[in-house]
């Protein structure tokens, strides 16, 4: 594999077409990691290669294929659940101790809460709580019904690139407990997320942006605070 400028890019077309032998492709990838010329060539040729599938006569999937594919997928729930359980978790961030103390939490809430109000629905079995949205637009509500909670977002911004929103349950005197609920919102800022776990004793439902894969403890101040009690 030549790395001279004169030859750079010579393998890019073959690479994007899948036409290099495995060892050649691996060597080219290593070379490309430090060669802007080859990166540009691969990017440009890749855009063309991405369209080649359209050369094929465009067909409809045969009847039954969708059901068959989804049947096979649903027959493997353990693989997905295991992957979810093995999601990488981030340890305590340096500034976390301050955040996790009751004093720190009170400080964050005092600076952030703009008057959470509890709205009661007509029936006694459900309750709608207006949550505080901090530092961004949009609204958030927590619907409590039958001991279960649902977080409903409207007009809410997407998390920063590479991040995901994570839901936490906060009990008095304890650090926020992760729920393993990770979510984003639609392009329109809508979201509807079930909050799992036992809500007894939970004082707040919190949402923070976290690195992809979630965290064991919050690494950012909350962007949503719902005061349950």
């Amino acid at each position: 594999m030549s790395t001279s400028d004169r030859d750079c890019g010579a393998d890019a077309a073959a690479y994007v077409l899948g036409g290099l032998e495995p060892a050649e492709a691996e060597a080219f990838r290593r070379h490309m990691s430090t060669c802007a010329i080859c990166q540009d060539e691969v990017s440009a040729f890749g855009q063309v290669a991405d369209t080649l599938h359209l050369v094929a006569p465009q067909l409809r999937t045969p009847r039954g294929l969708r059901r068959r594919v989804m049947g096979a997928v649903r027959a493997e729930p353990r693989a997905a659940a295991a992957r979810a359980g093995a999601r990488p978790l981030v340890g305590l961030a340096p500034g976390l101790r301050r955040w996790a103390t009751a004093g720190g939490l009170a400080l964050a809430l005092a600076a952030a809460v703009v008057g959470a109000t509890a709205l009661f629905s007509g029936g006694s079995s459900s309750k709608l709580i207006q949550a505080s949205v901090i530092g961004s637009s949009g609204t958030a509500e927590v619907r409590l019904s039958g001991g279960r909670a649902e977080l409903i977002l409207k007009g809410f911004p997407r998390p920063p690139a590479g991040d995901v929103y994570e839901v936490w349950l906060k009990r008095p005197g304890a650090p926020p407990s992760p729920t393993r609920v990770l979510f984003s919102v639609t392009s329109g800022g809508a979201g509807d997320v079930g909050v799992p776990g036992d809500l007894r004793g939970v004082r707040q439902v919190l949402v923070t942006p976290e690195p992809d894969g979630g965290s064991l403890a919050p690494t950012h101040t909350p962007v949503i605070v719902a005061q349950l009690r």
Partner: protein
Amino acid sequence: MFRVFRADLRSLADEDLMALIHDGEPRALEVIFDRHGDRAYSLAYRMCGQRTVAEDIVQEAFLSLWRSGTRYDAAKGSVRSWVLTAVRNRAIDAFRRESVTASRDVADEEATARLAADERTESEVERREDARRIRAALGELPDEQRKVIELAYFGGFSHSEIAGMLDLPPGTVKGRMRLGLTKMRVALGDPPRVTQ
């Protein structure tokens, strides 16, 4: 245990659905299948020429997406590209198992429903127009360039295998691939970058 993101999945962008798939939500994969299944099957059928094999390839491709522990990275390409790459890879795997031979024009007597000429949904009109432009760009290439591109992309052959098939030096095959893709870039409205 985690809760499924319950917003209307069909309103989500592909990238958002991929995140849900990674977290084990099969309905998100169903939406991805609905959006890209036709293209996936079309490519698989074009490569192997047999309906049942093409169906197996598509199923394996989507299963591989479901099983993959790698979170989708938008920087590496669109979700559609990711799906079609999985289809190509499964087809090439099938070729290498020698259970299937790459086929370009094998007629399959079983009915293969094509997109109807009078399909009028916006996406399908756009897709037909894109297909027309790509076929025209490929068709305008000299035979020698078109052939090596088709053998690599649809046949899954390496440049050295193609060189052997066509009795050409390996460098010549790579050069024809580069010239062909460069011409297609120009034909499709993307002028080539001058590298010297």
